[in-house]
């Protein structure tokens, strides 16, 4: 089972929930920090990490002597990664989406496969948990191609083991967020009940609903904000899987890089219950599928 912990708004507690859920998980587990623009799960799970492996994307390289200036590549590129300035072909590798089309249409073999660094992937272990994280190169504009490579590594580990996976997703509802929830069996949306939190929660719910995956909600800092989110979830039949109280002891533990499931017995129980409800959610949806 792959579980993705996501949210519309940032700072709702995705990593807090991921880290706590991971520590109470009672089956073989891999956790993946897919928030590659700002990974921080390692700050709470303290994994022992291996050395980083660089990830690359194929981009064209020009052999100017072979270029006849036919312009086929310029016409093909939809991203302005290749431009013909008067009669000089110029490449902008930062703009390239890596489709390889320019290399394919170059009759003179003036364009060949070069590469652009996307980021670094690190693997390790946090106790019994397999840990995987990606860190996007600073200045890299597109995270999904890199996230795909982190996910490939995740799938590779899954082939060798029979694990569950918890993915810590980036916030938002754009390509990186979709890229991180698309493979999951269950989506856990973390939100707070503030007007901002509720607004962005709705965006996330609307964006992920078409994927047809079971979704549940964790309300963080429960007690803050309004009842709108509760009313909305009741109306739309979205299960509220857990509520994490708004409590100073949680903020203190977080600021020290501690997992909040270990702060008190009560909090530990919240996450054990969350674990079971996620399993129920996955099982229920499996039944629905088999009925259909």
């Amino acid at each position: 089972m792959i579980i993705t912990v996501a949210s519309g708004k940032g700072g709702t507690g995705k990593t807090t929930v991921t880290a706590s859920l991971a520590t109470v998980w009672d089956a073989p587990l891999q956790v993946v920090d897919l928030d590659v623009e700002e990974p921080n799960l390692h700050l709470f799970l303290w994994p022992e990490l291996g050395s980083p492996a660089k990830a690359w994307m194929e981009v064209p390289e020009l052999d100017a002597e072979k270029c006849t200036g036919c312009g086929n590549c310029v016409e093909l590129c939809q991203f302005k990664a290749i431009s013909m300035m008067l009669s000089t072909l110029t490449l902008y590798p930062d703009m390239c989406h890596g489709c390889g089309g320019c290399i394919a249409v170059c009759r003179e073999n003036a364009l060949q496969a070069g590469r652009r660094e996307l980021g670094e992937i690190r693997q390790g272990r946090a106790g019994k948990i397999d840990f995987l994280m990606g860190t996007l190169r600073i200045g890299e504009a597109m995270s999904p191609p890199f996230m795909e490579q982190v996910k490939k590594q995740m799938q590779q580990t899954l082939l060798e083991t029979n694990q569950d996976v918890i993915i810590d997703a980036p916030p938002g509802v754009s390509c990186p967020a979709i890229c991180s929830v698309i493979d999951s069996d269950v989506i856990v949306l973390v939100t707070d009940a503030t007007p901002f939190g509720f607004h962005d929660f709705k965006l996330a719910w609307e964006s992920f609903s078409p994927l047809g995956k079971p979704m549940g909600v964790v309300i963080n800092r429960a007690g803050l904000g309004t009842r709108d989110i509760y009313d909305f979830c009741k109306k739309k039949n979205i299960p509220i899987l857990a509520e994490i109280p708004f409590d100073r002891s949680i903020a203190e533990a977080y600021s020290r890089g501690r997992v909040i499931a270990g702060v008190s017995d009560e909090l530990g129980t919240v996450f054990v219950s969350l674990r079971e409800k996620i399993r129920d959610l996955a099982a229920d949806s499996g039944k629905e599928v088999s009925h259909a």
Partner: protein
Amino acid sequence: MKKIAVTSEDPTLDDQVDPRFGRAGGFLVMDLETMEARYIDNGASQTMSQGAGIQTAENVAKAGAEVVLSGYVGPKAFQALATAGIKVGQDCDNMTVREAIEKFQKGEIPFADKPNR
């Protein structure tokens, strides 16, 4: 120096310089020998998801301009213009196209050696 392109919000010499280069609404290309100006629409670049600066640089080059005056030019647009040997005068915002051209003719707009955005 014969032809100069100035990014412009609207089609006349008395309209404001568009401070954006890549996503400029258009540009006025003036022949400094005949003092004839023509307007070239650049609206298509405004809807591009990326590469607007490079596209606009191509448009300016195709129009035959040797100098560009604008407010802010980004690094990729600057590189593209440099490749074509087109010189860049920046920080020409908050003035009309006519004022920018007059300032340029008086030598009050220096050519930039690097982008200001």
